């Protein structure tokens, strides 16, 4: 009787752990997905703004080149982080989750650097910033 009870408790506990794991995975993936969507939209909107300023002659080639350089670096990191998140969604491997967290952390630092670089040009309409 006690043994049967223990097995039942173990099964319930295991089921709860699996359910909690799935919920945590879903919540984590959903939050990361939303963060990725926000980052992508922010990046694309910023690049569009910088592109328009350049086409209208408000920013110089040097600023364009630096924006492209930072933009490429961010794009690569963002896409690597997204790929790691997609793999985590498919397989649920902690390694992919860890890889996503590491890449997303690096990408957020780079995005901040990128936005910090372009911000004065966007705010001041491309006037040369010292």
């Amino acid at each position, binding site marked *: 009787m006690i043994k049967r009870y223990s097995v039942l408790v173990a099964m319930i506990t295991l089921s709860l752990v699996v359910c909690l794991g799935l919920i945590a995975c879903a919540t984590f993936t959903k939050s990361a997905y*939303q963060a*990725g969507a*926000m980052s992508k939209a922010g990046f694309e909107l910023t690049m569009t703004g910088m592109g328009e300023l350049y086409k209208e002659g408000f920013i110089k080639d040097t600023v364009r080149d630096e924006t492209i350089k930072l933009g490429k670096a961010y*794009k690569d990191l963002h896409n690597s982080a997204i790929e790691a998140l997609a793999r985590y969604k498919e397989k649920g491997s902690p390694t992919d989750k860890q890889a996503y967290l590491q890449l997303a952390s690096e990408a957020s630092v780079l995005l901040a650097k990128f936005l910090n670089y372009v911000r004065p040009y966007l705010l001041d309409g491309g006037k040369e910033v010292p």
Partner: protein
Amino acid sequence: MDPVTIGLMISIIEKMLVYGPKVVVEISAAFENEDPTAEDIRNLKITMEPEEYFK
């Protein structure tokens, strides 16, 4: 306010009217997606090369 700045402000407002709704729709769709699939996640990849924005 000088004419160049006014022109620029009009241009920025014009662009925001074009791109703003697109961004809002994209972000809203992402927030309404309760259980994104791996394909949904991969759709968040940035596909356009940065230099293309300046052409």
